Structure formats: C-alpha cells, structure tokens
C-alpha cells in the first residue's frame, strides 16, 4: 500500500509564478540608480552619499512608523520606501540641510503615500511631490547649488563672476552665459540636483531597467523624444535640453513609476508626450527654470483620465456575436 498524503496544500491555479515580485522590481530600480549615485559622489563628494543615505533612512523610517501608527502590516520589505528615498535624494541639491530632506521624506512617504492607503494607492508620485513641496517651500536652500572643481569650466568661470549663484546649466542658458559642452553635460560634470547631473549614468540605469523588463520603454522614449522635438521647434539645442536639469531622471525613474502612470502602452506614450510638452512649456515660458517635476505631477493627475480613454478593447467580435 502506498503512503498516503491527505493534507496537501490546496490553492488556486496558477501554481507557478513568474520570478519578478514587488521587492525584486524595487531592488532592480535601486541597482539602476547606483551609477548616477556614483557620478554624484564623484562630482559632489561624500556628502552626496550622506544625503542619499539620510533620505533612504528617513523614508524607510517614516514608512515603518506610519504603518505602525495605523496598526497595519509592515511594508518596508518591499523596498518601495527605499526607492522613493533615493529618488527624492537625487532631486535635492547636495548641501540641503538634513532636516529639510527629512521634511521632504515625511511628505513623500506619509502625506502622499501612506495617507492614501500605502503602496499602489497614491495618485501622485511621492518623490515628485516631495521635491515640489521642498522646491516651493524652501525655495532658496533648494536653489543653493554647490560648485566643485570637477565641474565644467563654463560653470567655474560663471561662478567666478558671481560666486553666490553657482548657476545650473539651465540658469546659465537662461542668462545667456556660455554653457558647458554637450559632452560635459552628458557625462554630468555640471551642477544641479544631486542625482540628475549625469545623463550617461541615468541612461545606463534606464537600459538596465529596460533589459530587465522592469520598465517599458514607452514613457522614457516618448518623453525624451518630445523634449528633443520641441527643443528643435523652439530653436534650442536638443542634446543640451535632454541632458540639462531633471529630464533624464524624470523620464527614466519618476515618470515610469507604475502606480502613477497609465497602465497600457498607448496610455504610457500619451503620458510621456504630455510630460515632454509641459516640461518644455515650463522651461521656456514659466518663471521656474525647470518643469520636469511639475509636468510629471500634472500627468500623474491626468493618468486616471488617460487610463479611462486608453482601455484595451476586450477580445470579442465587434457585433457581439460570433464573427466569421
């Protein structure tokens, strides 16, 4: 008589699952952010690393604390808070006081995410809102750029003229001053927010994410292409516009946030184009030099409508009956 097993696990099919899970996806995003972090530490020095660690720690701490206060399950294991922290850090100037960064983390994690029920239920990207509130709330510390000797000659000479500004390439361009060469822009030998300076490093991370199928190329490609096309329309240098400011960071890491972007490919393309259009409109016309985060936030808010209009059509015959 064979040995009997009568207490087997009964669960619904499918009984196999794909290897990707939320934590592994978030881990991939963290890995993809490493090159940009490395460039940032190279250009700005060790404080870049300290500020990043500070943001990650605060975000994870706030996530843990808010879940605990709400008596809900602990979710720091899904690493989403760490990703938010690192991306938020990338959006900050390197000398921002730690307590201000903590305020940003508080807004990102508690106000934008946990108040709305936690991961997957927020309608706006936490890091974006964190950045915008800091940007508006702490306007001057958030524009307090740091000059280091590793930066482009154009920035160093501009700083000699007016040591207080330490202007970003976008600000130099707005003021009609010489800007860094495209190569310097691409590599990231410029100043700006900590993690957004190096287009090369961010692209490397983006390629990693696309290869690992973590993100679909729809949003970054349509976003970047729109920025490039509109630069030409406005008579600007597309390479400069793509590498300057937060376009790369925004297109690859913030606009692609699953939760706050459309779910279908068509929707994602519309989303990317919208981000590009608003970014360029704000850059060219508004009083803020940079519009990436506002553009992404606006598209986040439009996402439910995009989702509504780009729903897949169910696989069924048009007339409702069987088609021949």
């Amino acid at each position: 008589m064979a040995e009997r097993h009568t207490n087997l696990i009964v669960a619904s099919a499918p009984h196999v699952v794909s290897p990707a899970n939320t934590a592994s996806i978030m881990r991939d995003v963290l890995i993809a952010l490493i090159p940009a972090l490395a460039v940032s530490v190279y250009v700005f020095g060790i404080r870049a690393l300290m500020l990043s660690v500070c943001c990650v720690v605060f975000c994870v701490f706030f996530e843990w604390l808010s879940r605990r206060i709400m008596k809900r399950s602990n979710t720091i294991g899904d690493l989403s808070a760490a990703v938010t922290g690192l991306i938020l850090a990338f959006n900050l100037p390197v000398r921002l006081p730690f307590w201000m960064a903590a305020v940003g983390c508080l807004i990102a994690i508690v106000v934008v995410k946990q108040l709305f029920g936690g991961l997957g239920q927020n309608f706006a990207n936490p890091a974006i809102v964190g950045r915008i509130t800091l940007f508006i709330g702490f306007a001057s510390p958030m524009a307090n750029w740091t000059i280091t000797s590793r930066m482009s000659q154009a920035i160093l000479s501009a700083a000699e003229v007016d040591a207080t500004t330490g202007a970003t390439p976008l600000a130099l361009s707005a003021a009609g001053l010489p800007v860094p060469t495209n190569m310097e822009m691409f590599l990231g030998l410029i100043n700006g927010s900590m993690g957004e300076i190096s287009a090369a490093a961010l692209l490397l991370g983006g390629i990693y994410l696309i290869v690992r199928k973590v993100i679909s190329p729809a949003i970054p490609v349509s976003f970047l292409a729109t920025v490039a096309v509109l630069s030409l329309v406005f008579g600007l240098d597309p390479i400069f516009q793509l590498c300057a400011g937060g376009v790369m960071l925004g297109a690859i890491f913030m606009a692609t946030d699953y939760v706050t972007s459309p779910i279908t490919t068509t929707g994602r393309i519309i989303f990317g184009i919208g981000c590009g259009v608003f970014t360029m409109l704000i850059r060219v016309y508004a009083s803020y030099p940079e519009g990436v985060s506002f553009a992404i936030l606006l598209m986040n808010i439009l996402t439910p409508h995009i989702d509504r209009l780009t729903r897949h059509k169910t696989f069924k015959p048009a007339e409702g009956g069987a088609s021949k």
Partner: protein
Amino acid sequence: MSAATVFYIVLSAIITNNYVLSKFLGICPFLGVSKKLDSAMGMSIAVIFVMVIATAVTWPIQTYLLTPNGIGYMQTIIFILVIAALVQMIEIFLKKYIPGLHKSLGIYLPLITTNCAILGVCVLNIDNGYGFLQSMLNSFGSGVGFLLAMFLFAGVRSKIETNDYPEAFKGVASTLVAASITSLCFLGFSGMLEKIFGM
C-alpha cells in the same frame, strides 16, 4: 483689445489664477460634486453658463446704476439678489424652451446660487476695474478654470475613492489632502502667461 490680451485674460483665469485651486472659490462643489465625472462636468458647465450671464447682468448694474447714483455699497445685496433671481429665471427658461439642457443641467442650477465663485467673479470684476468685455472674458475663463479643476479632480477621485485610508482620514479629510496635491501642479505655471503674452 488685442488678441494677446484676450488670451491672456482667459488663460490666466484658467491656469495661474484658477478660482478653485488658487483662490479657493467654489470649494463646496469642488469637494461635493467631483466624485463622478458626469456630474462634475454637468456642474461645471452650469457654472460657466451662470457666471457669464451673471457678469453680463451685474456689470452694467454696477456701472450704470449703482456707481452713478453713489450707492456702490449696495453692491453685495443687489448682486446676490440678481444672481438668485437669474438662476431661477434660467431654470424656468431652460425647463420651458430647452428641456434637454434642463435635464442635464437642471439639478445643478439651484445649487449654484450659493456657489461663492459666481458672486466672487462678479465682485472681482468690479474690484479689478475691468471693462465689460474684459469682465466677460474673465468670467468665461474663470468658469473654464473651474471646469478644468473639476475635470482633473474627478479623475483623481475616481482613482482614490475606494482606497484603504487610515481611519481618521476617511472622507473629506483625504479629499482635501488630494486637493492639496492637485493644487501643487498649478503652481508650476506661474509666470508663464506673462512671458508668453509679454504682459
């Protein structure tokens, strides 16, 4: 008045000086009727409609009746009565002559009398010293701005309505926090219209 001025007045009322999200007028319907896109749009269209008509009536009253006779202080009383009467008349008119429109807008009309955006726009037109045409443009723009805010917010609410909110934030509290985040993105456009139209 140049085309640029026309666009400037309309667009700034829609975007940079959005009535709901930057001037806090019409918050009640913004919070109350934005749950479903259909009703949000119906309400907004009714608001645009009444705003424009109310301005068309109150501006001449102020300019040709109140100010010349030195009874400018009667503004508040007269305006609110005019608006209340106007809304009633519009409703009766629609019911009788355009029943289709009445069916879709009818239920929103009575609520509009006490929508502070209507009285607000009438008073502000006078306060800002706008001429008649400017006032009309401003009213139209403000109405469209209201519609835009309602449209955006209705989408947001459809996404977050059934979230697992923390106990204390269920209901209006979370809606207000969502409105707060929504109003953030309007700040990004500050200064834009001035630059485009060279104002």
